[in-house]
């Protein structure tokens, strides 16, 4: 054996698995399909606005030719361009009239560099949701199973936030929260008055506000309130694979990383009923090679992992590796976005703030929990909120030029607020990833074909989120209140999940309660594909906790000889 363990992918999940396995003394290989990236020196975070290429704008012709999908992400700009794939080089297909935005980057650290850093625990309302309303299959775990692992990953990653004592948004191991500004404080007061079971709290985020000795020793420091996070952070102030998990893994002496290595398929040995090899193609030379290990973790992202499993067909697994259930590739979900509302506030003209806070506030789910009257859909939504005073760019839409304009823009503009809804999407078999029948990429790998769309439940939920957001802003004294817009096509929240779901029954799910494949005992999957339902909260913290939990389970079973 070359290694004790192989981890495919170096993003949030892969980084966590590598750290835990290495710390358990296992010789671990991380295989990353993208290029190597150096923490700090490859970031553009110390460039002032006037030093950033074209002041952040990516050339229009380049966007049209290479980044038509990736540029839909709010974090895409000339200072972050290196973190996104060229759509022209990494195609996928969708059916006519059913767009899906697959937003991603191929490099060491994956999307842990560009993620939104919002970190919330799922609750038993989420883990029991499928069992309760009959959509999808039951999660094989409950909150009590994952709670200690949330503790563990929060302590290491560093999460800033406030404990609230809410059943639907469990408390955690938090560093001091980032304070609400004056308008948010007022909004919180009004909302909690007018809607007694709704709560407004500081956005919980993976930023250090009071670093521990362990974090300082890894070279991480406190958040400097620059809010250029998506460029990468030289202070290591937010959690990423590059700032946190991979350095910790490297410190054990047990980590090997290969980059530019695209996993083509996993080989299955039917006699031993195990994965016998991981076949990769060198991204540059296109030469093939293979690695062996006692256990394999797939952390290649929801669509990437499904693609590899489906491509790993064999006599024993004609529908794709570990796919006796037929669930691989199915039940694709993504949080509903594009919903919510915005408004301006006439007050607080003499108040302001200093610094660029990299989070906002959170208004957790209440619908179908504490408020059920007149609800015509299942599941729920939460809101991430942001507020601040308008900057100079408001002038594009306001008449005025000359000395008057200059004088006006010298002062901050009116206060504004956005309530950005994140809604739950139901798991449905027809929302699925398959392999394209004929088209292949430049490495000869069949393209992912993504067929995913929203149903009536999603549309009704989105309507209600829009109405509630408008109503809350109006009740809190806002003006110019309007819904943010239409429900965006799936993929836009970059929370894709569900294509290799956990479950109790091998006939209907891919993974067991420890993210181990029902069908292949030395195969674990801990990226978003393992999710049995989507919940309403941002999923990355749950991927971290499940990854750490599964890695330790695998280490235990390897030690006892059961794997």
């Amino acid at each position: 054996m070359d290694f004790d363990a192989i981890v495919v992918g170096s993003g949030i999940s892969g980084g966590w698995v590598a750290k835990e396995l290495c710390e358990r003394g296992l010789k671990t290989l991380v295989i990353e399909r993208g290029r190597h990236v150096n923490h700090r020196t490859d970031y553009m975070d110390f460039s002032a606005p006037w030093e950033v290429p074209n002041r952040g704008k990516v050339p229009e012709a380049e966007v049209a030719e290479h980044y038509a999908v990736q540029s839909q992400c709010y974090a895409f700009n000339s200072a972050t361009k290196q973190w996104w794939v060229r759509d022209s080089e990494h195609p996928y297909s969708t059916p006519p009239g059913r767009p899906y935005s697959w937003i991603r980057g191929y490099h060491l650290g994956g999307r842990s560099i560009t993620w939104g850093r919002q970190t919330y625990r799922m609750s038993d309302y989420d883990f029991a949701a499928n069992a309760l309303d009959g959509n999808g299959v039951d999660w094989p775990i409950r909150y009590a199973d994952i709670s200690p692992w949330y503790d563990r990953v929060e302590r290491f990653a560093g999460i800033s936030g406030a404990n609230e004592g809410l059943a639907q948004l469990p408390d955690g191991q938090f560093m001091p929260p980032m304070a609400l500004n004056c308008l948010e404080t007022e909004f919180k007061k009004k909302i909690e008055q007018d809607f007694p079971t709704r709560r407004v709290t500081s956005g919980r985020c993976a930023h250090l506000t009071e670093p521990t000795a362990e974090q300082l020793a890894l070279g991480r420091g406190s958040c400097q309130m620059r809010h250029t996070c998506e460029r990468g952070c030289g202070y290591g102030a937010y959690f990423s694979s590059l700032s946190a998990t991979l350095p910790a893994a490297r410190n054990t002496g047990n980590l090997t990383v290969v980059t530019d290595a695209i996993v083509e398929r996993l080989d299955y040995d039917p006699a031993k009923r195990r994965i016998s090899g991981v076949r990769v193609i060198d991204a540059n030379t296109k030469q093939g090679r293979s690695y062996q290990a006692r256990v394999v973790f797939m952390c290649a992202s929801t669509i990437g992992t499904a693609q590899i499993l489906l491509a790993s067909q064999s006599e024993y697994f004609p529908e794709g590796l570990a796919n006796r259930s037929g669930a691989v590739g199915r039940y694709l979900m993504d949080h509903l976005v594009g919903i919510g509302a915005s408004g301006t506030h006439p007050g607080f003209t003499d108040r302001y703030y200093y610094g660029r806070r990299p989070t906002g506030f959170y208004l957790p789910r209440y619908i179908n929990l504490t408020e059920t009257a007149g609800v015509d859909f299942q599941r729920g939504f939460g809101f991430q909120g942001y507020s601040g005073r308008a900057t100079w760019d408001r002038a594009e839409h306001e008449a005025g030029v000359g000395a008057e304009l200059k004088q006006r823009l010298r002062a901050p503009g009116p206060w504004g607020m956005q309530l950005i809804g994140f809604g739950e999407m139901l798991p449905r078999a027809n929302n699925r990833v398959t392999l394209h029948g004929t088209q292949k990429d430049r490495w000869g790998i069949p393209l992912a074909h993504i067929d995913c769309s929203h149903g009536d439940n999603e549309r009704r939920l989105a309507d209600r989120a829009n109405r509630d957001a408008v109503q809350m802003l109006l009740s809190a004294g806002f003006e110019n209140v309007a819904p943010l817009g239409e429900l965006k096509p799936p993929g836009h929240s970059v929370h894709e999940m569900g294509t290799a779901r956990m479950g109790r029954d091998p006939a209907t799910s891919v993974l067991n309660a420890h993210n181990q494949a029902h069908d292949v005992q030395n195969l674990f999957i801990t990226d978003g594909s393992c999710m049995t339902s989507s919940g309403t909260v941002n999923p990355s913290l749950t991927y971290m906790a499940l990854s750490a939990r599964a890695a330790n389970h695998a280490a235990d079973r390897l030690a006892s000889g059961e794997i």
Partner: protein
Amino acid sequence: MSDSSKHNLNRRALLLGAVLLVGGGAALTRIARSPGAFLGRARAFNAEQFALLEQVCEVIIPTTDTPGAITAGVPAFMRQMLEEWGSDESRAEIVSVLETLEKLAWSKFGAGFLELIPERRLQVVSGLDAERVARHDPAYGKFKQLVLLGYYQSEIGATHELRYELVPGAWRANLPLSEVGRASAV
């Protein structure tokens, strides 16, 4: 030379510039796809257009107790943006705004924009600004956005006119505006 023939000449020069810009665009885009090819790209503005652009920018953001658009390098920034960032369509839109301003100068005051006294330049620009902002004209929006971006995200605009710290170091959530002073540039 009569005013009207000068007008025609200027108009012709501007239009010629626009034609070259659009006509050459397709070939240039093809060349630009190979690394380093931007070096060979035609300039976004001819000399007359650039002279006009400079003065229009300075009308929109004049020198007051702080430097104006020209000192902050806004016209050069816009030229660079139209050479490195803008599509052929964007370049044509920006040039069309300049053309319109030149035409308005002639129709309102019977002289080219550059011949006008400052008050009349301001009248021409603010008249077009009010009308185009009211009807959300995308070409004008793009033009104004570039002027604003060029100024307020320049070092002068961000640090002299407004306030900018590369590393704020702290989040202070609730302060009197008077204590902070000017608007933050970011």
